[in-house]
């Protein structure tokens, strides 16, 4: 049956969802705000969706806006992309329980409730014997309690013989690396705690913070999971390594698979670590009855100890790099967004874990106008030229129009484009990645100088997956 899917997100992910809808024979409805009027996702909606497929709203974060358009446009389902709605169980619940119910393309709301919160996740993981990071396992709202946890963590690290002890303060309701700061000096804890609390209040409307031990020199790994509606059948699409990040802990390069023990040497049994985190992730998925696409995020210490960090109950920015190396029944062209949509409407998976194989190495670059030398400060301004050389091993996802200048909106994430490179092995993927970055032209003008992260990406390519 043809569905009409309202895409409650913007930019490149809205474009990928539109394309997945077309592939599956579904119609779509697209939203935009004034600030986004020039975005490529608006152009594509006009081109592919026809009249009644595009609506201007006041804010992407206003559920009433999304749902009022859904009714007027006669949508049958809502796809939240990877925005805040994707992990808001109240929104997911409202979508399916309202007078004109819609299908929510994502996990069932109770699954999001159980796993969408870092703290609940930690509790569930601990109950299943899955290793987690030392620290608080619920949001802290009291300054005195926060200080006591921090004091204990500093003392614990001192007892462990760590010279540079460090505590992380995180906005409990945050995600994607937003609202996280490190504290090295116990005397500085209070001011950092207050800053994060205020930031969390302003951005997520929730003052709760988490306090955790900071683990140094770790690698950030992920396990891509897909589960059928009903929560009975679970498969994985391999691992990713997302260790190349900005100083604000925002991902900049993702590589699939997470390690390459066949090509590089590790100080621990890397193949076993990948197997362990995959098994732990699938165990948790089965235990909670996970029923959509999701990502289990891990940190791995230099000694090869994995700790579960959180579960992202949504499609992630970097899903494409896993799809790039995954083959279903030996076929190329895996599309995890299309799979997520199919699962949401109750379609059977049609394949098992044995049917999923992996071929080569994928690298995803996040191309951003920012200044890595100044703590990755995002750059405001206008893009005047953006071009690259097409290659059979390259997939680009971007909302930047190529036929005109584009002013970068200040309201949203600074991601401009994602480039996904495929190679037979890490060596080839890195060579192709460097060739791509060399061919990339990204020019613009800004009051205080236009900067990009291309040189940073090139520099980091040389040592990808080394640990």
């Amino acid at each position, binding site marked *: 049956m043809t569905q009409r899917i309202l895409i409650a997100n913007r930019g490149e992910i809205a474009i990928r969802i539109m394309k997945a809808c077309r592939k599956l024979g579904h119609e779509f409805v697209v939203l935009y705000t004034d600030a986004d009027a020039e975005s490529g996702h608006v152009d594509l909606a006009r081109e592919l969706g026809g009249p009644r497929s595009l609506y201007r709203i006041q804010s992407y974060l206003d559920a009433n806006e999304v*749902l009022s358009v859904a009714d*007027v446009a006669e949508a049958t389902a809502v796809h939240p992309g990877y925005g805040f709605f994707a992990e808001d169980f109240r929104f997911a619940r409202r979508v399916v329980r309202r007078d004109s119910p819609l299908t929510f393309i994502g996990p069932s709301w109770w699954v999001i409730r159980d796993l969408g919160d870092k703290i609940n996740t930690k509790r569930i993981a601990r109950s299943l014997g899955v290793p987690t990071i030392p620290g608080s396992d619920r949001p802290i709202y009291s300054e005195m309690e926060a200080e006591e946890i921090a004091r204990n963590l500093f003392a614990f690290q001192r007892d462990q013989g760590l010279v540079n002890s460090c505590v992380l303060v995180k906005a409990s309701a945050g995600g994607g690396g937003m609202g996280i700061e490190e504290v090295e000096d116990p005397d500085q804890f209070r001011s950092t705690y207050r800053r994060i609390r205020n930031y969390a209040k302003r951005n997520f409307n929730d003052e709760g913070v988490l306090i955790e031990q900071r683990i140094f020199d770790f690698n950030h790994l992920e396990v891509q999971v897909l589960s059928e509606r009903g929560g009975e059948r679970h498969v994985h699409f391999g691992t990713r390594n997302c260790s190349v990040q900005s100083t604000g802990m925002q991902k900049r390069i993702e590589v699939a698979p997470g390690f390459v023990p066949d090509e590089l040497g590790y100080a621990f049994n890397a193949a076993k670590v990948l197997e362990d985190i995959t098994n732990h992730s699938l165990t948790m998925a089965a235990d909670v009855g996970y029923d959509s696409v999701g990502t289990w995020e891990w940190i791995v210490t230099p000694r090869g100890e994995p700790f579960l960090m959180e579960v992202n109950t949504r499609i992630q920015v970097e899903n494409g790099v896993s799809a790039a190396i995954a083959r279903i029944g030996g076929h190329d062209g895996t599309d995890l967004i299309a799979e997520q949509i199919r699962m949401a409407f109750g379609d059977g998976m049609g394949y098992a874990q044995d049917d999923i194989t992996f071929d080569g190495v994928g690298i995803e670059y996040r191309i951003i106008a920012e200044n890595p030398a100044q703590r990755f400060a995002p750059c405001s301004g206008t893009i005047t030229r953006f071009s690259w050389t097409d290659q059979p091993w390259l997939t680009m996802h971007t909302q930047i129009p190529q036929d005109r200048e584009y002013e970068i909106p*200040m309201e949203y994430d600074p991601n401009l484009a994602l480039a996904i490179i495929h190679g037979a092995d890490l060596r080839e993927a890195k060579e192709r990645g460097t060739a791509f970055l060399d061919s990339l032209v990204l020019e613009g003008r800004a009051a205080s100088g236009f900067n990009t992260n291309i040189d940073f990406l090139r520099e980091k390519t040389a040592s990808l997956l080394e640990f």
Partner: protein
Amino acid sequence: MLNVKELLEEIKASPYKEIVVRAPHTGVVEFAELAVGDAVVGRSGTYQEKPGTPLATLTREKNRKPINAPEKGEVQSIRTELEGQFVEAGEELLTIRHFLTRKEVIELILQQALHLFRAPERAKYYFIPEVDQKLKVSGKRSVKVHDGMDMLIVSRMKRETPLAYSGPDGIIYSVYFHRGENVDAGEPLLGICPEDQLSTIQDVVTRVQSEWEEE
């Protein structure tokens, strides 16, 4: 020295401002019984507790949101063809011709007299918690500023960075930005009055108050 008389004459030559009332969000619009030429008033009362003249309602997800006149004025145009229709956010609903108030004229003239600390880039601006607290408790003219003082938080693309004040020492006389709203690069954020010029500024205010007649 500021030529208040000349500035006032300039403003008097064109004392109106056109206010475009737009749909604040999506919804089905119903206009109040208004006609072109009708007079409307803005929010009033000791505590600004009385809403302005009802202009329309916007119904979304079973919630009816009243849209009231933001300022005093005269209805200039109404888009009656939208009656009962679903409108997108930002759709123009009607326009009001507004005669500048004394307070607005004072602000316009003060922008010429005060040192304006301007937005270095398009972003949302917030006071740092310490300044915010002081402004809330003691009022804006209680906050002294000096060059290099940490004053604001710049929020853009979900990143927040501190911004220090640069300019002459003085007190915060006017605040031109609103919480959660974007300010364009070059737009004024704060009007700062050096303490030794406070009496001159007060003279300007008194003069406008006596010379500007509100409609």
